[in-house]
């Protein structure tokens, strides 16, 4: 028997098709001479066991239901099914974020089993265009609370609270919103209760079943067709109910010449899983494999967390003056926190892997302790770069499902919804989205989804309604959902996945997820597809712990033989170059690879590589700056471009319609500009883009005066020191006599 900890060091063997659309049925897989293995395992329930909580919230939803909220019925947000109010306090002052004058609005602050919510006493203002159906602009889902600060910006930690409560409470959210509440106007009893309630539910350890998703799912008749499996895999896999190990998906693919007995040998040691291959392989025997241990070259999950924590501070603004003060040191602070550098390293590693696959035709084995953090990042980035399918909305969704959800990324531990002390929290998934954003920035038309889509996806991780990001692996999910199911026949609980966007947004808002400039694949290419040049591509990921032998001598030893057998390979070679471990500079090989690719004509449906030079890696402005009033570009920003493009697209469509009416279709199919049926045109055209700001669609500019933000700390700004001849003091007309 394994316990959950040991399982973390399993080697995964996954073999999903790189281009999932190609997999039309099981017979194709057969034709590729690959076995789909159904592995029986006695460990199926391990996941459920490991989830046994060490701390339990003292109230469970069931208990709460009994104690009814008596009085405050008139003031609460529209509660979701299964949502219950824990406590509330009236006459709470919410400061308007960017204001130093201590102005704000009064209202009721509530804490439910889903969110912390502020309901303003004032009449609700104009409906937001990009309204989230689950939570409004004054709601914070409990899992979205990052930190709570008390008076004098003292960090509040769970255990310390007794009978005291601060007069001012600052809440930093994981989606980078900042809320400031004053509790000094409320009744003492209420204030104490709400503060302690919020702290308890947001910061203290709790059990998994206290997460809102469970009570939400029990109380919604959610259509069963939205279970994870059905939406995520376009290919037709049938799923068996048993698992080799709980961390592995039920189905995975290994080469044909590997028997199940061979695989059982790997129990406890780990199993290599192929995550992608090209079906057009003519030869299914691979000649060599390169191994790449990510633990050696990339930052650890702790490094990632540390860096991100520094980075996010630049955007959690509760004071305009401080913001402008920090503005002068912005660039060096960016460098110091290292976040962009981590992004660069991940992208670079992915490029290295692509290079081996593409140029050297070798197979790559990505290893990592645990095998489900940076392995997921790198392998999904590689697939994103290689395969245009993953740059579509559906493709990206299946990429996340297979590499992250099925791939066993420990979402529960990494986002630490339960606030357990022994779990390593780390924004690994966000790091991946950051990398995707960089690619998207550099090659916009290659992506079907928009920047807004990525931002919303990054927010959704912290909305505890979707089961997608709630578990550590598939086994964990299944056992829990089944255990929680109210039905005796043990059909799993039906929960929405994050991919069902209608749960959060209406159709109009969802239109903003598509990129109007996306170049759809030209039609004629479908025929070309068949004669696609047979690329010999495989990509493997597995944890490195299976090979904990000293790297110098006897590398792989016994495992090597097994591995060779499993993979049907003749030679295993250690990753040739790992200069990146010595210096963060791009290795010359990657540089050349990029340059060679760059000279080729750009094909948005082919290989995409990111430029990694300093200026090319940017800050994801939409995600990070959207709530900061002072840096909103009114009438500008990407939306200004978007609205114009949408307008032109609309015109093109209109003209096309007119042509059709005249009974004539254009003979030439214009290569790039195939207008999409759905564009954001309607949404944006409704309002003049002059009024939209760079934080569109997240903030509407309605409550802002059209007045520029003038930096407040201009005077201390420039310290021109150490200049030869004290240039700053010189007069404009050169010449020695003019020296003052």
């Amino acid at each position, binding site marked *: 028997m394994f316990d959950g900890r040991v399982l973390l060091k399993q080697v995964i063997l996954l073999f999903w098709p790189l281009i999932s659309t190609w997999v039309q049925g099981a017979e194709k897989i057969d034709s590729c001479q690959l076995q789909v293995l159904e592995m029986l395992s006695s460990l199926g329930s391990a996941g459920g066991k490991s989830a046994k909580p060490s701390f339990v919230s003292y109230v469970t939803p069931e208990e709460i239901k009994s104690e009814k909220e008596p009085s405050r019925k008139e003031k609460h947000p529209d509660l979701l099914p299964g949502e219950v109010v824990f406590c509330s306090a009236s006459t709470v002052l919410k400061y308007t974020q960017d204001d130093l004058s201590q102005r704000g609005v009064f209202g009721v602050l509530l804490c439910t089993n889903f969110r912390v919510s502020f309901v303003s006493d004032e009449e609700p203002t104009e409906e937001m265009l990009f309204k989230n159906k689950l939570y409004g602009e004054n709601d914070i889902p409990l899992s979205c609370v990052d930190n709570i600060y008390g008076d004098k910006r003292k960090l509040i930690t769970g255990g310390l609270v007794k009978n005291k409560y601060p007069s001012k409470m600052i809440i930093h959210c994981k989606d980078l919103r900042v809320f400031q509440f004053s509790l000094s106007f409320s009744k003492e009893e209420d204030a104490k209760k709400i503060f302690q309630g919020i702290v308890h539910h947001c910061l203290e350890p709790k059990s998994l079943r206290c997460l809102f998703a469970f009570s939400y799912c029990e109380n919604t008749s959610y259509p069963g067709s939205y279970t994870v499996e059905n939406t995520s895999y376009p290919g037709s896999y049938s799923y068996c109910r048993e698992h080799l190990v709980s961390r592995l998906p039920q189905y995975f693919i290994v080469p044909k010449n590997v028997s199940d007995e061979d695989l059982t040998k790997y129990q406890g040691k780990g199993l290599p899983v192929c995550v992608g291959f090209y079906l057009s392989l003519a030869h299914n025997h691979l000649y060599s494999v390169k191994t790449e241990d990510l633990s050696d070259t990339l930052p650890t999950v702790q490094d990632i967390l540390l860096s991100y924590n520094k980075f996010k501070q630049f955007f959690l603004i509760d004071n305009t003056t401080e913001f402008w003060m920090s*503005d002068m040191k*912005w*660039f*060096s602070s*960016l*460098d110091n926190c290292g976040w*962009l550098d981590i992004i*660069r390293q991940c992208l670079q590693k992915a490029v290295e892997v692509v290079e081996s696959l593409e140029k050297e035709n070798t197979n790559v084995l990505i290893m990592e302790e645990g095998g489900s953090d940076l392995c997921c990042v790198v392998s999904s980035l590689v697939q994103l770069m290689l395969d245009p399918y993953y740059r579509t909305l559906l493709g990206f969704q299946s990429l996340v499902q297979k590499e992250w959800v099925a791939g066993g990324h420990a979402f529960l531990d990494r986002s630490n919804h339960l606030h357990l002390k022994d779990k390593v929290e780390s924004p690994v998934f966000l790091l991946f989205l950051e990398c995707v954003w960089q690619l998207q920035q550099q090659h916009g038309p290659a992506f079907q989804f928009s920047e807004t889509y990525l931002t919303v996806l990054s927010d959704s991780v912290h909305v505890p309604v979707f089961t997608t990001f709630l578990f550590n692996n598939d086994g964990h999910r299944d056992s829990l959902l089944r255990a929680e199911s109210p039905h005796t026949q043990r059909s799993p609980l039906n929960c929405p996945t994050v991919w069902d966007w209608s749960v959060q947004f209406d159709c109009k808002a969802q239109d903003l997820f598509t990129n109007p*400039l996306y170049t759809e694949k030209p039609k004629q290419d479908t025929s070309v597809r068949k004669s696609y040049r047979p690329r010999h591509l495989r990509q493997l990921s597995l944890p490195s712990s299976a090979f904990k032998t000293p790297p110098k001598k006897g590398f792989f030893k016994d495992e090597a033989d097994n591995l060779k057998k499993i993979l049907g390979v003749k030679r295993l070679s250690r990753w040739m170059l790992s200069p990146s471990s010595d210096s*963060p500079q791009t290795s010359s090989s990657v540089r050349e690879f*990029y*340059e060679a690719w*760059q*000279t080729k*004509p*750009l094909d948005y449906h082919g290989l995409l590589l990111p*430029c990694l030079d300093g*200026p*090319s890696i*940017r*800050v994801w*402005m939409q995600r990070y700056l959207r709530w900061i009033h*002072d*840096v*909103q*570009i009114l*009438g*500008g920003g*990407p939306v*200004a*471009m978007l*609205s*114009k*493009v949408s307008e*032109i*697209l609309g015109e093109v469509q209109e*003209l096309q319609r*007119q042509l059709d009416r*005249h009974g004539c279709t254009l003979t030439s199919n214009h*290569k*790039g500009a195939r207008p999409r049926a759905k564009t954001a045109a309607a949404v944006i055209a409704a309002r003049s*883009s002059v009024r939209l700001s*760079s934080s569109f669609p997240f903030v509407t500019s309605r409550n802002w005066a059209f*007045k*520029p*933000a*003038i*930096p407040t700390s201009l005077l201390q*700004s*420039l310290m*021109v020191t150490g200049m030869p001849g004290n*240039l*700053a*003091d010189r*007069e*404009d*007309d*050169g*010449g020695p006599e003019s020296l*003052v």
Partner: protein
Amino acid sequence: MRRNILDSEYTVCHYTTVIQWKMLKYSLNLTGIRVTKVAMGDSSKSTSTSRSDRSTHAAKPTFAMSSDNVSISTDFSPELRGRPKAVAKVLRDSKEEPQLLPKESVQDMAKDVTYICPYIGALRGTLTVTNYRLFFKCMDREPAFVLDLPLGVVSRVEKIGGASSRGEVSYGLACKDIRNLRFAHKQMEDSLRKSIFEILMKCAFPVSNGLTIFAFEYGQVYPENGWKVYDAQAEYKRQGLPNESWRITKVNDHYELCDTYPSTLVVPVNIPDEELKRVAAFRAKGRIPVLSWIHPESQATVIRCSQPMVGVNGKRSKDDEKYLQTIMDANAQSHKLFIFDARPSVNAAANKMKGGGYESEDAYQNAELVFLDIHNIHVMRESLRKLKEVVYPNIEESHWFSNLESTHWLEHIKLILAGALRIADKVESGKTSVVVHCSDGWDRTAQLASLAMVMLDGHYRTIRGFQVLLEKEWLSFGHRFQLRIGHGDKNHTDADRSPVFLQFIDCVWQMTRQFPAAFEFNEYFLITILDHLYSCLFGTFMCNSEQQRVKEELPKKTVSLWAYINSQPEEFTNPLYVNYSNHVLFPVVSMRHLELWVGYYIRWNPRMRPQEPVHQRYKELLAKRAELQKRVEELQREVTNRSASSSSERAGSPTRSITPVQTFV
């Protein structure tokens, strides 16, 4: 890079006939060189047009990409127009020589010169020096490597070290456009013969060597006379001037009041010319406060001038005080006047030692003085020097942002933009008139006034309006281009040189980034202006003042840059331009939104070049729209022709109203 492939195809294609080009394309295909999709699209465009059209086409790349990469355009060829015989000539010797402009002549040519490219490595080829350009071509590579730059961009030529062990001498060229070039060639056996680099030194600095700048020889004829783009009277008329408070004075008609000001000035109605002269005596270099821009509704004005001659003793001038009071009174909306002194207060105070200074709020009632903390030309020059170190030739990846910050370049940009923003805010939101000055009022004042005007007035965001803005605020008001750039002058250490104008263009670029749909021109327009700031091909940026330009008869003897630009506006048009009327732009001047202009400062680095210009896709869309529009109109005409004749008039109009055609000014 991709752009370059295109360009190289152009270089071949536009000299040949249509058929030749097709054959060439074919042979390229045969030799395994892929003709890109985009190239195909463009090729069909060029094949379908007439020869003269194609030369317009070819004129596009100027020398923007004449860099260190696989291939570059050789064709700086606006002159092709109307010179068919050049075609034959070029075809013959397109091997190693550049294709020459009218009046351009080869001064020297040397074979077996090595160009040490920081990105590719050593390349051996032929170096040609003409009275206009330096041209290097290496035939060993496929496609051939070409380096083509106007001598005007060379700021310094120096011999590096002595003869090396291989008997080679090496030369370094520092350029004004953020790059350095390095060449080497064999030591001359015949020591009497001058090395090509000695010739180069002579030609690169015509002013120092008593030669004429090439702009005075270049005689290309364009359809439009660019010197007529700006007409002061017309521009003031557009602003609604003169009106009941402001008049146009002829007091400076012969540049007697102020030799660095334009002849046409706008001053308050009730200040007679005699008083203007007394005010001039109190302002540095006689640069009195005059109107630059007036708000169409509130009548708040942007006024520019130089510092008052206050001196250590705190001298006052009743005339100057009355003058500013009159300016304030001309705006009924506000009882206040803001004086923006662009300098840091310390520097402004230090100027008192030299007789200058700033307005004391005691002497000028109702005026509020604000210092904008923008540093002087020397600080800016030093900052750009550091920036060049950071970005050329290669970027250090790991500390990019810290290195960038250490140059202070973007901090200076931020301060200038912040200053302009405060001015625009006071005028727009505060409805208050503002007076802007620095020391002499021709560097920082020009930056601030013109940027504020770009923010306030949408007209200056059009291609022609921007030309007017440059002509007005920079050229006519005496920004000393000759001194700041040092055209044809070998004294590269001259303390008068400074990238003041470059900073201004950078600020405009930052604004185009923040408001991608608010400007009619594109990035290429700004880069073209900067390239010709140094090229010495056009007369636009010659001399220091309007007076000098008139004296040198520049409009007669040289071609204006605007003639070239306006001959092909489609190249410079932003396809996303939305013309909002009366839309004031307030850019965000946080470092969070400022970024280094990669497309200009790092354009020589092949890795930083976009594979496909972003605007390509927008252009495709526009082309598609135009195509459809044409079809619809054709069909509609057909329909109406067939049906009753009465409705023929209405038929065409609905489409037009739905789809306004992209307008080229």
